[in-house]
């Protein structure tokens, strides 16, 4: 009976006169403990005493007036403007804020500024040598590409400085332990260790390296290791900024019946408030402030104040009346029998076009008669697989600074996809096309969590924008670690029911998969994630018939959005664990089974765009063969039934494809009348170094050397106001999609230069080539400025593309429809040219992704399992990836290492646990969420396979996500190979291994 009616409870959040200490909140079936803050009241409003103190930073004395509560981190960053020291989790659990205190590394976020008085503080700004020369560690950081996103780099370098002062020649193990307190979410640990060891060994000269396929220095290497790279959180406007804070629901499902700001408005320093009912309506299921909270952390209203402390205090003074509803947590139950209380009133299932009835799937795609195929099979195997919520946890929390000038809005934002973000924000705020500019020069890690590419995303930038409009001042909003972990989108958990039929010789007759995805309070990217997960299930094995049916179900849990891999990590875990079981049931070596049954060139792909594309240039077989050789599969592999002893080793393998991105890209290169080249790259700088790779592609095509790139080309990136349109920066698409559009633009420009030179000289255009900023041929050697002076300027022709390769169908994520894009420049690119490059010679290019150009990969793991406890260690990962063509070797290796480590966390340690009764996240802190640390990653061997595909620039394919898929299935399969038990649920915790061993009677 308890579940048949809605219990309504009024919950009041915020200040309550006379209530301090612990108080109770009745919240439906739960009793939540309220928090108490007697402190602020005792001290008395805003009249906070400040004390004089002097900090000794980098050898200089700084007199300051600070409150007692000021941390050293804030004193450095906000009072002394030394922003090289980064704020990460702000709770001593990431290491980004590491500085030296009398030579010892410490977390400046966990130290009061007053406690640092009289001590020598050294920050990243203080380690340069005479005349500003780089510290040897910084030189090594540049040479070894030890920064991906770079947000951990300053702190990590400080730890390394302390290490080398104490131990000039550390071993690899000593380096890893000394830097163990610095998380790198990009997983660039191997290159960071290499850099420290190189610096200790004296940094030889960087060897000569080709621009394409080599280890050329990236565009932002210098800034990221010196602390001069400006991230959004480092933006300081001369006119000052207000600080915003967001009030979020502490309960999982509730309607807001009243928001009362009357106490807030009395607090000195508060400049603006905004509530959910002021937010413009939006056609999706979500707004950036909501009148109904659909998960713990849902944003309801916000305040902006003169300083952070006041904004926090104001948050407490908001009185909020909530009417609680019975929360919905069980997606399967909703599908089976519905729910009397709905998360969204117009449907339980998230479809592409919004909420829909529970009997309607989110997506289904099929080929052949699956029931008949399973009927005909000699062996049938069923299984159910469960994946968890993963959090992005980039080291840099989301941050935005919003500033209005009339009707024009500038957003400095930690945003992966500046162009689409600008477009989406214009729609969400009901602004004219072209009125929002998004600048995101550096982002401290993205992984999909900072990708504002549809109106159903979090859109926290809108909160800052509305507050800024109301206050008439610029507003800054920066997430706390908790907001980062569960108020922002996460990786969807998914359940897969697999039914596979096979003949005794291993041939697969059919694969049937039903997937259920509890997508949380809002759809976000849930439906397209379901679709791409389906591609992951359908496109690895040859099978007679296929069927994939997915349901994205609304639940009152954290929202599942996009996260590196976008459905693939979930699907590949389910498929590859299931196929491993099938191989075992058939009595086959799991490697042999895969070598026999994988899809090959000429086989048809089944993607969301349909069945048209044929596999070509697949490097999968080579990945399997070379990966197996690297891990010594043939020498080491033994069936688990042959293993004995307390500690047992095992090998596991997995394989898959991954698309090389999606959607449309524009390439644009301009040569100014003075001969200077401008390359305005629309890609976000989220740490993948795709923008560097694209720069190398352009420079190579135009005949520039790495040194000439620095002096003769102006590279821009990640600014929607000054770069060419690109759809998004995700989906492994940087090099393949945008790189191709820019390669096309470079071909266009080269042709235009040659034609102009031909017109000037009367020679044939084919006689000319371009090199080092000059056009050479027919006995002439012309500078760019000479040629541009005579050449037609502005847009002279449609963008260059190859009709056969470069224009393909794309899925519209908002509607679920498949469209064929028009091969023309996006209006924003045209507007940019009109605005800035009318007097330039320009080359333009177009590309819409090609589904045939798949990035293939195979991963191998070796583990050691203790049969007494279930404790296991991953000893080695071998990651073999077909990248088509290496554009930047450091970048490829870094993606393989980083993806491998990211996937290892996904498979073994990371899970956002959500309390099953209240829907409240249990472990929203890095300490308990456990990303892989510097000390913990295993030996990682990367095997790079090159099977070029003509769709990509110089043959390159996407590869940023596929490495993530190894951790879960390869380790699960290796645990089976060692211990003889299957774990069908990730992460593969020691609890789960122990339980499986115990239930199988195998625990020693």
């Amino acid at each position, binding site marked *: 009976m308890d579940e048949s009616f809605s219990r309504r409870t009024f919950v009041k959040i915020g200040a309550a006169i006379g209530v301090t200490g612990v108080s*109770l909140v009745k919240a439906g079936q739960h009793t939540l403990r*309220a928090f108490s803050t007697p402190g602020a009241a005792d001290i008395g409003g805003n009249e906070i005493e400040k004390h004089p103190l002097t900090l000794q930073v980098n050898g200089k004395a700084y007199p300051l007036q600070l409150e007692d509560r000021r941390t050293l981190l804030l004193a450095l960053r906000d009072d002394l403007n030394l922003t090289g020291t980064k704020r990460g989790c702000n*709770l001593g659990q990431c290491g980004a804020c590491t500085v030296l205190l009398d030579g010892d590394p410490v977390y400046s976020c966990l130290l009061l500024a007053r406690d640092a008085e009289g001590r020598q503080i050294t920050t990243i700004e203080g380690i340069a040598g005479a005349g500003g020369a780089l510290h040897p560690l910084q030189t090594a950081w540049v040479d070894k590409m030890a920064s991906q996103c770079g947000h951990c780099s300053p702190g990590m370098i400080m730890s390394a400085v302390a290490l080398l002062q104490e131990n000039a020649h550390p071993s690899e193990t000593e380096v890893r332990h000394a830097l163990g307190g610095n998380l790198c979410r990009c997983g660039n640990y191997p290159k960071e260790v290499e850099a420290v060891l190189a610096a200790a060994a004296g940094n030889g000269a960087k060897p000569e390296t080709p621009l394409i396929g080599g280890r050329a220095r990236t565009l932002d290497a210098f800034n990221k290791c010196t602390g001069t790279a400006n991230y959004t959180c480092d933006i300081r406007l001369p006119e000052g900024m207000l600080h915003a804070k967001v009030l979020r629901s502490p*309960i999982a499902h509730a309607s807001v019946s009243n928001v009362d700001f009357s106490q807030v408005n009395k607090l000195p320093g508060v400049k603006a408030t905004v509530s959910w009912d002021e937010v413009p309506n939006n056609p999706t299921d979500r707004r950036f402030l909501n009148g109904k909270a659909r998960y713990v952390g849902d944003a309801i209203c916000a305040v902006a104040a003169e300083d952070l402390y006041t904004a926090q205090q104001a948050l407490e003074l908001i009185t909020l009346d909530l009417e609680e509803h019975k929360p919905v947590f069980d997606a399967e139950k909703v599908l089976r029998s519905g729910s009397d209380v709905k998360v969204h009133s117009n449907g339980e299932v998230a479809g592409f076009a919004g909420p829909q009835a529970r009997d309607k799937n989110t997506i289904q795609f099929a080929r052949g008669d699956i029931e008949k195929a399973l009927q005909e099979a000699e062996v049938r195997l069923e299984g159910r697989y469960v994946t968890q919520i993963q959090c992005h946890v980039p080291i840099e929390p989301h941050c935005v600074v919003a500033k209005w000038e009339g009707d024009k809005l500038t957003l400095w934002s930690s945003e992966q996809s500046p162009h689409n973000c600008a477009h989406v924000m214009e729609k969400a705020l009901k602004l004219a096309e072209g009125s929002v500019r998004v600048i995101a020069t550096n982002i401290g890690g993205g992984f999909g969590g900072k990708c504002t590419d549809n109106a159903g995303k979090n859109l926290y930038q809108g909160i800052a924008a509305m507050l800024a409009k109301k206050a008439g001042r610029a507003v800054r909003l920066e997430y706390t670690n908790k907001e980062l972990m569960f108020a922002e989108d996460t990786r969807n958990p998914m359940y897969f029911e697999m039914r596979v039929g096979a003949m005794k010789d291993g041939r697969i007759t059919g694969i049937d998969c039903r997937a259920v995805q509890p997508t949380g309070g809002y759809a976000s990217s849930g439906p397209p994630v379901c679709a791409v997960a389906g591609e992951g299930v359908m496109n690895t094995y040859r099978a007679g018939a296929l069927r994939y049916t997915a349901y994205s179900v609304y639940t009152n849990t954290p929202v599942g959005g996009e996260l590196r891999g976008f459905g693939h990590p979930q699907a590949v875990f389910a498929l590859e664990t299931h196929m491993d079981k099938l191989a075992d049931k058939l009595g086959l070596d799991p490697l042999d089974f895969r070598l026999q049954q994988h899809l090959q060139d000429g086989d048809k792909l089944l993607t969301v765009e349909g069945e048209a594309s044929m596999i070509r240039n697949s490097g999968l077989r080579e990945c399997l063969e070379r990966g197996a050789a690297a891990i010594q599969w043939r020498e080491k592999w033994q069936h688990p039934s042959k293993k004995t002893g307390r500690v047992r080793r095992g090998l596991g393998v997995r394989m898959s494809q991954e698309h090389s991105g999606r959607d449309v890209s524009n390439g644009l290169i301009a040569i100014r009348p003075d001969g200077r080249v401008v390359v305005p790259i629309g890609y976000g700088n989220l740490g993948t170094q795709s923008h560097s790779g694209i720069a190398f592609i352009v420079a190579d095509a135009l005949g520039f050397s790495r040194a000439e790139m620095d002096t003769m080309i102006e590279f821009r990136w990640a600014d929607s106001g000054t770069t060419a349109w690109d759809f998004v920066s995700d989906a492994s698409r940087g090099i393949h999609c945008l790189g191709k559009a820019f390669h096309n633009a470079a071909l266009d420009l080269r042709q235009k230069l040659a034609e102009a030179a031909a017109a000037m000289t009367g020679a044939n255009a084919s006689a000319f080539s371009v090199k080092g900023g000059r056009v050479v041929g027919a006995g002439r050697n012309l500078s760019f400025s000479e040629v541009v002076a005579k050449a037609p300027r502005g847009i002279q022709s449609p963008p260059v593309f190859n009709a056969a390769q470069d224009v393909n169908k794309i899925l519209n994520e908002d509607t679920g429809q498949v469209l064929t894009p028009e091969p023309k420049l996006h209006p924003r690119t045209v507007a940019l040219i009109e605005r800035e490059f009318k007097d330039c010679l320009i080359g333009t290019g177009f590309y819409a992704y090609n589904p045939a150009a798949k990035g293939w990969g195979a991963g191998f793991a070796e583990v050691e399992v203790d049969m007494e406890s279930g404790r296991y260690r991953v000893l080695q990962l071998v990651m073999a990836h077909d990248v088509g063509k290496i554009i930047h070797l450091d970048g490829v290796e870094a993606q393989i290492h980083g993806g491998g480590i990211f996937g290892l966390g996904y498979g073994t340690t990371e899970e956002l646990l959500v309390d099953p009764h209240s829907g409240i996240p249990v472990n929203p802190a890095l*300490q308990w969420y456990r990303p892989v640390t510097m000390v*913990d990653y295993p030996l990682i061997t990367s095997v790079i396979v090159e099977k070029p595909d003509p769709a990509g620039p110089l043959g390159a394919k996407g590869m940023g996500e596929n490495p993530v898929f190894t951790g879960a299935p390869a380790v699960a399969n290796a645990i089976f190979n060692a211990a003889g038990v299957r774990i069908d649920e990730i992460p593969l915790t020691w*609890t789960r291994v122990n339980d499986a061993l115990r239930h199988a009677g195998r625990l020693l």
Partner: protein
Amino acid sequence: MSFFFAASRLTAKSQIGIDEPASFRLLQPTTLEEAARMLEQHGAAAVALAGGCDILEKIKTQWIAPSFVVNLKPVLSKEITAQKIGAGATVAQVAKSPLLPTALRQAAIKVATPQIRNVGTLGGNILQDSRCPYYRGPWHCYRAGGLTCDAVRGFTHEHALFGGERCFTVTPSDTAVALVALDAQADVFSLKGKAVERRLLGDIFALPAYDITRMHKLLPHEVLADVVLPAPKPGARSAFRKAAMREAWDFALASVAVECEMDGDTCREVRVVLGAVAPVPWRATDAENILRGGKIKDRIEEAVRASVNGAEALPHNHYKIGLIKNLLRECLEEIAQPKA
């Protein structure tokens, strides 16, 4: 339809967007006595700060909002000798100090990360608060003065095998486990006698049955001043092992510290202490009884089996039984055959 209305309008504060402290006054005592007096005077409105690694996290998330923070840094001794360690000595100092017994150094180097070891103090490490996420979250937990435990019907991966009673939290300290095995004592400054009192370290930890809201028995006006090690015992050998999912940052999922006083091959006296499996450092007396008076290397497996006698697993922590066995075996093997 039936509706339930709360009897009165009560409050819950949304903590999700907060990570800087409410205002407080930092008090800087110059003597232990002054520090103790400040703590007594302000009672529940004051907290003590030693290294601050935990207390500042609590204050910044406003899980607590004290009006006064009493800084113990100026008054705690940092000195380390073979017999006495100042409570203000950093964990890093302890880890690096060759004067100290093996198990303590092995435990100290396993604490958190270099940055935390450089700031965190031995005293703070020993007297750490519970790390149970249900205690530190918005649940109405017994330990936080509430009236239920949501962990036992939620997630219990980190929780206790022994000594739990309504509350199943575990002692998070690595150094405390080693120090109890080393038979250490605590010098506690008490305002009552205005002097230092010496107590057995193992006795200062509180089981839920003693007081479910506290991890140790020290009173607000009492300050842990020094940790005292017993005079060197002939043939004493010690070892510490810790199992954690990650080798950096993580608290133990299980730890074991052993000190044996050896007569040649024979174990004259022994203490086996288990960490992270009980609310306090937990003596495995059955294992001790097996080892005492015998040759260690002949009794390892028997002791390992006995070490988990009485363990009561919760839904998600059965693996800790195996971990304890793994770790005790490693400790005893090291003690039986010390590396040169």
